[in-house]
């Protein structure tokens, strides 16, 4: 039995956000993942981000594929609808859900096997279509749930727990997302909450296809020497490109940022993302530069983290399809059925 009831009463001193929810209201069932699994840290960052953004939990729809990572939506936002779909095909389900009701916030959660192996096609096409979503790829370089096989993001030359050496070139999901047309592309590390939470918040506020590849060590199968996705490996090789502070514009408070190293990136919803760049030469609005930066870092064996690309004038699928403002799932025969009179005319034209 994996369901453990949470205490019903909240501590009266728990802080509430603007919509009246405590941080605990954003939690879900107790995780059944291995203790220390990177995926759980990502869930914690998601909880923090949604709480800080003052989003009512039930306005979020969580969709995932299949894998340890894809199980996690059960472990946060317990008052949101969730859908554990089929392996590698979450993007299409999310697309359909988004078309049915454009008013909800869509969160896609996937793994590297889910997105880069079996689901590489849907991963690419959902970016091309510009579906308004936050797509989190919990990247551990292995198939956790099926016990340690290599996934397509495993680096060439990395070693599986059982000793096999991976000879295939890895899929670089951030480069692919960029090339396929994602309008927000970032990479982070599950253990770097300070970087991850603002990135998630910015991704949620982004009105278009937002993708974050989060390196997330698998303690069971990919945290041994020889793996390139272990905690130690990533900590040693991580080069953050920038730090990100995000706050919606309705919040009057500004944060402390250093002059000169800051770019304001306005979003469609009126909010502004302020980037504090550790590498002051990095401009995330330059797509070509982003691609080459990622490639150059990879060549040096470094993991580039931070906001890699952001198109401030992003458009989403609904804009492309010119869809009606009201959610489709609220339209009935009155709005949708052309009626018997029109059918008479159609009949007449076919005689």
């Amino acid at each position, binding site marked *: *039995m*994996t*369901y453990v009831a949470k205490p019903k009463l909240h501590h009266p001193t728990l802080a509430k956000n603007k919509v009246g929810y405590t941080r605990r209201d954003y939690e879900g*069932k107790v995780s059944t993942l291995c203790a220390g699994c990177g995926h759980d840290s990502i869930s914690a960052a998601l909880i923090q981000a949604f709480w800080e953004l003052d989003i*009512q*939990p*039930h*306005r979020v*729809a969580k969709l995932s594929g299949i894998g340890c990572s894809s199980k996690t*939506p*059960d472990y946060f936002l*317990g*008052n*949101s*609808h*969730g*859908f*554990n*779909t*089929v392996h590698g*095909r979450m*993007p*299409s*389900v*999310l*697309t*359909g*859900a*988004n*078309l*049915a*009701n454009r008013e*909800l916030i869509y969160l896609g959660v996937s793994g590297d096997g889910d997105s880069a192996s079996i689901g590489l*096609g*849907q991963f690419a*096409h959902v970016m091309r*279509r510009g579906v308004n979503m936050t797509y989190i790829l919990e990247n551990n370089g292995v198939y956790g749930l099926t016990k340690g096989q290599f996934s397509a993001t495993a680096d060439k030359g990395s070693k599986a727990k059982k000793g096999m050496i991976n000879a295939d070139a890895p899929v670089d999901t951030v480069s692919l997302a960029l090339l396929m047309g994602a309008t927000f592309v970032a990479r982070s590390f599950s253990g770097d909450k300070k970087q991850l939470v603002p990135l998630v918040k910015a991704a949620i506020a982004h009105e278009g296809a937002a993708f974050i590849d989060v390196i997330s060590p698998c303690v069971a199968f990919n945290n041994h020497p020889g793996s390139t996705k272990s905690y130690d490996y990533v900590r040693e090789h991580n080069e953050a490109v920038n730090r990100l502070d995000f706050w919606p514009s309705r919040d009057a408070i500004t944060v402390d940022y250093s002059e000169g190293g800051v770019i304001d990136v306005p979003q469609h919803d009126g909010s502004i993302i302020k980037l504090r760049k550790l590498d002051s030469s990095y401009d995330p609005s330059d797509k070509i530069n982003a691609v080459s930066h990622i490639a150059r870092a990879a060549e040096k064996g470094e993991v580039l983290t931070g906001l890699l690309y952001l198109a401030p004038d992003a458009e989403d699928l*609904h804009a492309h*399809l*010119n*869809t*009606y*403002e009201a*959610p*489709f*799932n609220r*339209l*009935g*025969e009155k709005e*949708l*059925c*052309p*009626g*018997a009179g*029109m*059918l008479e005319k*159609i*009949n007449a034209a*076919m*005689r």
Partner: protein
Amino acid sequence: MKRIEALNDFVVKFANVNGSGSASANELFAKSFLRMGIPVSPRNIFPSNIQGLPTWYEVRVTERGWLGRRGGVDLMVAMNPQTWAQDVKEIEPGGYLFYDNTKALPQGRFRDDVHAIGMPLTEICNQTYTDSRERQLFKNIVYVGALASLMDIEPGVIAELIGEQYKGKEKLLKPNLNAFQMGYNYAGEKLKGVLGLKVKRAYGVGDRIFMEGNAAAALGCVYGGATVCAWYPITPSSSLAEAFQRYCSKLRLDPATGKNKFAIVQAEDELASIGIVTGAGWNGARAFTATSGPGISLMSEFIGLAYFAEIPAVIIDVQRGGPSTGMPTRTQQSDVLACAYASHGDTKHVLLFPEDPHECFTMAADCLDLAERLQTPVFLMTDLDIGMNQRLCKPLEWDDSRQYDRGKVMTAEMLEAGKEFGRYLDVDGDGIPFRTYPGTHPTKGAYFTRGTSKNPYAVYSETGPDYQYNMQRLLKKHDFAKTLVPKPVLTPANEPARFGCIYYGSTSPSMTEALEALAARNIFVNALRIRAFPFQDEIFDFCQSHSKIFVVEQNRDAQLRTLLVNEAGINPASLISILHYDGTPITARYITREISESVSALNVRPIKRDKAA
């Protein structure tokens, strides 16, 4: 030499080169009969490429209104030198061969028992037109003109049709009329009396319409409230999604804003199409996809998920032959089992079988209601014969008082009022649980959707009893579907009948015609047209009350028969298969012959053995 003489009852076949512009001229020809009150039934026989390969268009002119394929050709309009030999061979003895005699052909290329009617089409067009494209296009209209004269088609009717086709395009109207007139005059002067196939105004059409099943199904989806369509191109279903696009862009725009009350996604493959439909259905929008056999294969994993997770989805399967290209652009009913049991685990799905465009329309709208009422994938099993050919059928009907059946959806108000919500809980014995749309209520009614491993309240559970409860409930739901799906249609014989016959889908017009032909031979058969799966008790009772039942299908493996044995518990010994699967639509001649032979074989058997069977 024998000469076929026929009035309002014959078959004309056009042999053309794909891409030569013959399609619209041939359609013009077919429609002219309708305007004279004579039913016709045309069929396209086309290859799976765009240009260059042979294509045929067969028109059955039938005052009696037999809309199935007849078989045999009385007049061949042979416009494709490549297929000449095979085309000439197909003509009935005493029939006619209309051809272009601009270049003389050796005598050996004709048949002694066929009347050749030559007309210098190329020469006429080369003299009249300078542009090579015009020469080609108008050649088609010129032969229509000549045929009109030879058959006594009223020229005014064709002029009217051309007028409608080029309304507002005056530049095209005039030359088309001229080309028609040119052919008409030439045949009137030079080819008098050479053809024994004639037409005369009749009153056999009534208020019926002439429409393709794919367009009708698409319109049914518009009327039935589908807002999301996701598809991947595949013959013969592509024209369905394209028709949905066309109808929506006229009928589904918000007048105030010009915004679309529909979303169509041409997905990257069928996995994505059905995924999009599943996501939209989960989130409360009516969604459908149109595909054919190979697409069903790809969709199978998702179909299982939607079945287990209880998500409405409508899948329109325009059936065709097997894998690859070529034969697959011919008609078949060969996905019955693939759809009935699609996917992994214990699954069974609801299928509807339309007989013509009228039912494609009605049943498409019904499928959308059924999918939401039953919270499950529902299949509309049409085929190429209905889907891609214009078919005369009853006008489409819609009752403005009809409301969409959104099924058991728990609202925020119901949750607020304290109504118990168990996503997988059978509340009233029909096996169907309540669902909530995402985002309904801040604290109540949210649940986590997964395929299996859940208890009635959608809480994760791997226990055996929880799994079994759910599986039994799904069975109960499938059983309940019998009360909702279209009932079978019985056509009783005029005399007491020992034999029964079961058929479905596009076999319908040929079956109706065959029943009459059989009765004329004193073979009386009660016929039942199945319109849906799961099978209602009426179907079981029908089988019980006949010693032998012919099951007529357009596939090799007797797929519906398998379902009847498996799912309705019918004694296999009582079911005799009549199977047609060469890629051409089944004919009344074929059914009549097969049943007659079967009946005489049964009649010579000792009576005792027959009873024991």
